């Protein structure tokens, strides 16, 4: 019984939150990696682009709520996401046309692209803050819990409760569907394969008749979908605040690099590596040991490797270690 309690404890406080957070990071990391692999620059506007997509989603959610449209137990935001994606793609394509295209045509070095993306970051941040303001916005509605901690205790007779939020389930499900679709697209369709070819060797791809304009456009469209869904899921699960989204850029970068930048599958796994290590290393295991160890051996302290204040620092340290020993990431190999 104690062992079961201990397992439920880990499931409730480590596994489920890390899986959710990891999925949200994974979507962002694939976004970063795609831009890096095909357009060849580190996009510092990642977090703010995600917040832009989420903002549009929130505005549509509010609009639908005012019209009285809802999905019942599911959050209304799910119907608003397609509109968010649409606006996001329009925004991204116009940024590409007015800003990035010039540098791409001139074949500027990646550093210059990165600087330009900082300009885009400033502008996007301003747009988001001017439209929706810098404060916290909650836009979740519908049923909050699938399993409540108290009901679970009564049902199983265990001491530890297991709470499963609907947003957590939605996040994981949507991520699985989206990522499998993406990998199917990249590996099986002709367009996806030409994207891979373009990322592998640009000149060779151009010689074999691949249209670079189309590749770039499709990359931005996929990026828009990933950014909006990733951002909206994060906002549903926690809350929407432009500054948090800007900060999320850092673990997302860490995830993309840990997985081997330019490699979407690596980025996908990298998201979970970062999320799990953050939560594993900062969780206080006192209660866990109280369940599995006999009473005489119970620990006095919290049995916490690092205080939760260092959550971000954990992922960054992992990144630094990976950069030192394997600069091309854990899952290196072919690009894209």
């Amino acid at each position, binding site marked *: 019984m104690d062992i079961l309690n201990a397992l439920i404890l880990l499931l409730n406080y480590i596994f489920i939150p890390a899986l959710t957070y990891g999925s949200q990071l994974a979507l962002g990391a694939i976004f970063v990696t795609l831009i890096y692999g095909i357009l060849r*620059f*580190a996009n510092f506007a990642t977090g703010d682009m995600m917040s832009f997509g989420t903002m549009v989603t929130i505005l549509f959610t509010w609009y639908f709520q005012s019209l009285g449209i809802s999905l019942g137990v599911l959050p209304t935001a799910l119907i608003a996401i397609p509109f968010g994606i649409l606006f996001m793609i329009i925004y991204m394509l116009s940024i590409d046309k007015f*800003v990035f295209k*010039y540098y791409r045509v001139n074949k500027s*070095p*990646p*550093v*210059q692209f*990165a*600087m*330009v993306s*900082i*300009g*885009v*970051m*400033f*502008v*996007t*941040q*301003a*747009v988001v*803050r*001017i439209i929706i*303001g*810098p404060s916290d916005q909650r836009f979740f509605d519908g049923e909050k819990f699938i399993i409540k901690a108290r009901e679970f205790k009564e049902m199983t007779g265990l001491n530890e409760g297991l709470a499963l939020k609907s947003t957590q389930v939605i996040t994981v499900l949507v991520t699985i569907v989206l990522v499998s679709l993406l990998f199917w697209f990249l590996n099986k369709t002709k367009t996806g394969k030409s994207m891979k070819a373009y990322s592998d060797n640009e000149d060779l791809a151009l010689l074999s008749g691949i249209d670079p304009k189309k590749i770039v456009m499709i990359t931005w469209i996929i990026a828009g979908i990933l950014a909006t869904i990733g951002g909206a899921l994060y906002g549903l699960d926690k809350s929407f605040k432009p500054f948090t989204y*800007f900060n999320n850029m*850092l673990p997302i*970068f*860490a995830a993309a*690099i840990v997985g081997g930048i330019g490699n979407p599958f690596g980025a996908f796994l990298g998201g979970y590596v970062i999320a799990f290590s953050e939560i594993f290393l900062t969780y206080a295991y006192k209660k866990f040991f109280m369940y599995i160890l006999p009473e005489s051996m119970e620990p006095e302290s919290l049995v916490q490797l690092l*205080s939760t*204040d*260092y959550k*971000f*620092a954990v992922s*960054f*340290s992992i*990144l*630094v270690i990976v*950069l*030192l*020993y394997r*600069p091309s990431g854990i899952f290196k190999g072919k690009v894209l």
Partner: protein
Amino acid sequence: MRKNLNVIAAYSIMMVLIILVGIFQSWNIALSIFNMCLISAVMTMGANIQWGYAGLINFGIMGYTALGGLAAVIISVDPVQEAWSAGGFDILMCVWLIVALVLIIRFILKNFQNSKVRNYSIAALIVSGIILIRFTAEPGIEAIEDINPAKTGFLGGFGLPIIFSWIVGAFFAGGLAFIVGKVALGLRADYLAIATLLISEIVIAIIKHEDWLTRGVKNVIGLKRPAPYEVDLQSTDWFITLVEKFNSGKLNLISNFSDRQAELNQLVIEGSSVFVKLCYSGLFLIVVIILLIITQKALYSPWGRMMRAIRDNEEAANAMGKNVVKQHLLIFILGSAIVGIAGAMLVTQDGLFTPGSYRPMRYTFLIWVMVIVGGSGNNFGAILGGFAVWFLWIEAAPIALFLINFFTAGMSESHALKIHLIESVPYFRFLMMGLGLLLIMRYRPKGILPEKIEIK
């Protein structure tokens, strides 16, 4: 003379703008903008040395600024004796442990060949070392943080004049840059950018949460000043006579004695804060001028030519026998040290250290905008960038307000859109920075004052 005409013109425009703020808003605001411009100029000089001279991209400016600020705290705050006696021993033990750990790792790295066993044993050493350090430090840290947590709760510093911290801050930042450079400088440009950005976040996390050293988010307030206090000035005779002399024309117009006295008091209060700010301006100006002379000399020295050669073609410079790795590390340390000075100056001016206020937007990306807009590779350009961008950063809100009022003049005061726009005036500064950066990058990629290389 003619060659430098654009430099002189750009600086005169900047000065006129600041003087206009002084005339139309107040001299207090103008001087505080000027002081912050000087501090920003020091930061941009540091970033410019790394980016403009050597082409190294450093997105960790925030971390070095914060370390400089930490130096100001450690140098100027009086030591907390109770805390030292309560936990000082544990902390010192920890320091020795860290030193021993580093020495052991160095020894292993030097004397054993690269193998899996070596790498794993180093990893095991680091992990066990961290656990050991945590166990040694824990009681000491708790004891220190328990001592009068509302007022101290940390070890304090050395109680020296705060000016020394400007040099110590440079050493702190340089030390961090040495470690970061050893770790990250081999990386490609955009990887280096991300790595430095993340490392600076780690530094901030440590400063924020190690309360025994920095008080963390409880902030350290009331730091010593290199300049006199306003309150003291207001009761000093020579200062009152000075203000009286300065404003004699205005005061003579008032015949009533008590009115005159009240007016004088008002002027003294205003004058005292202007005077204090002028003191800071003088100190900062000295730093800026010294750094400018040194960096200009370095730029046109053989060393500067070598740096440009390394920047423009690493392989060729390497083939000519220049040690690229070593020079990169050196310039990374020098640039970061200058940023550290700026960080210490900033805390000195504010008189308080608030770890929570260090955010990458303000302390990393804004500085980069300054360098790019001003002109990388040109010290005068970088300083001008610091001035122009900081000026715009502060004056963006009034400008935006004016523009909004201008364009929505037809709407009624209670129109929802107008109210919303006016409420979000502070965020227009981001818009202006972003647009400014994008426009400069597109139409004048070398900045307002581009780098010019004189070949003699």
